């Protein structure tokens, strides 16, 4: 018998009796999404810039490039000084990656990013800037998981919580974001 059949066969002897799937009907607490998202993002040491949209983002990118920093932008309408390389490994010296955030989650400040080519891009850069479209906010993870894209062959990731100060905990080492981007800046095109 194959290991698969052996496992499936053994499962027939389970002592558990069938339990129905619960109905997931969490009520959404009424809340101003932008304010809650901004507060959550601040809690996890992210930065939210709401003014000026993509033009402000390009101005920020221009500033970074003027400092000699390496900036890769995959956001339409924003230009960096690096092109998408042939191999993922060539992204190792990227200082700032500018990527599109698809969805922001108000309850925890997480932003969904999906990546097909060079999936390591949001992780390998030193700093990550996510451009989040207007109206791309949901209240909680229940809403988020039903709205995110996750196509075949895709990596989708909720990016959150760059709590750098935790590294300085006096008692022990805390490895948060030790390997991936040190800072997450969310440039939102939300206009109030």
């Amino acid at each position: 018998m194959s290991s698969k059949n052996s496992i499936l066969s053994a499962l027939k002897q389970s002592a558990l009796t069938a339990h129905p799937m619960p109905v997931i009907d969490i009520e959404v607490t009424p809340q101003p999404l932008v304010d809650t998202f901004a507060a959550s993002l601040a809690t996890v040491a992210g930065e939210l810039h709401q003014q000026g949209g993509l033009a402000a983002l390009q101005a920020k990118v221009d500033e970074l490039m003027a400092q000699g920093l390496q900036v890769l932008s995959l956001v339409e309408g924003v230009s960096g000084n690096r092109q998408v390389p042939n191999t993922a490994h060539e992204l190792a010296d990227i200082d700032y990656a500018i990527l599109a955030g698809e969805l922001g989650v108000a309850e925890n400040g997480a932003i969904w990013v999906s990546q097909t080519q060079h999936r390591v891009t949001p992780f390998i850069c030193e700093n990550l800037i996510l451009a989040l479209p207007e109206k791309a906010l949901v209240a909680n993870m229940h809403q988020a998981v039903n709205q995110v894209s996750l196509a075949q062959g895709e990596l989708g990731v909720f990016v959150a919580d760059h709590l750098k100060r935790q590294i300085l905990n006096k008692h022990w080492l805390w490895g948060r974001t030790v390997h991936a981007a040190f800072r997450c800046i969310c440039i939102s095109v939300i206009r109030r």
Partner: protein
Amino acid sequence: MTELYSASGSKVHSHKADIFCRDETRVDWHSKALWVLREKRDRAAASIPEWEQLRQLGSELKLHTLTHLTDYLQQFEQQCQANGIVVHWYKDGQEHNQIVLNILAKHQVKRLVKSKSMLTEECHMNPFLEQHGIEVVDTDLGERIIQLAKMPPSHIVVPAIHMKKQEVGELFHQQLGTKKGESDPLYLTRAARAHLREKFLTADAAMTGVNMAIADKGAVVVCTNEGNADMGANLPKLQLHSMGIDKVVPNMDAAGVLLRTLARNATGQPVTTYSSFYRGPQQGGEMHVIIVDNGRTEMMKDKILAESLKCIRCGGCLNTCPVYRRSGGYSYNYTIPGPIGIAVGAQHDDTNSIPWPAPYVAVVLMYAQLRCH
């Protein structure tokens, strides 16, 4: 240090706890450090009005999945295959390790970067691969620390919690060439980052554990705070994910519930820094998912033990349990220590050395079960 806290040698919990308790200062800060996590958990839970409803939903959806495991595992496999993911099924650790070796050998892998996986600890995979000439690099900071110190994890979420920063400083001085006497956490963390970046960039393959496997999507979810799983899985062209049969959940809705509770329970964070959903290999790459039983179907035959397979490994019961906090993870004689380790390790307890005595269980029930998912 290594000898003092080695899991080999003494056979019973009380004796090993006694060894840990000889250093009262260490016991005190160990207990306090873990209690800090517990307090953060309480604050995070209190900030969600529907917290108790979430716990109930999480418990029920896991129970539902366990009672329909045959269907969900098969659906998961079919969906994975449709996404170009190769799925393997294996009965035990030995079979698991052998297939991992076979896959790595086929691709002539010399260096494997690995993120945290209690399953591979359970299967003792690292020493097996190392015996066959493969360099295995644990990339979670805490895991790398204990790997360099040649120790097993003492906690399932914060594996090097038993070590003081001065000890890590000395270890890094010896192994990574950092300055002698330097124990500044930021300095040490930066040194580990530089050391491990080189490993990521030169790795031939990556392996991760699996927090959830989504049956109707054919995707695996990997949660880390450090980004190490994703740095690994997306640089080399070969990615492997090992999971116990208990990790499957029906759909994204289920994942949404568990993602809301996992990090809040573990460390008090609203969500882990990276919650990554892999639904296929990268362009030109290969992705394998290895589904392992390793005693879980045996546990399913016992109604009480079967319920412990609902566990999402948040580590909250360890942080809560006063016995764990004051006896240390190495006193438990099993890879997974603390209250949940007693339950899921019971079937491996041939020498009756895991602490089951009634008073202990009473404490576990009183302090931990109330906080369990």
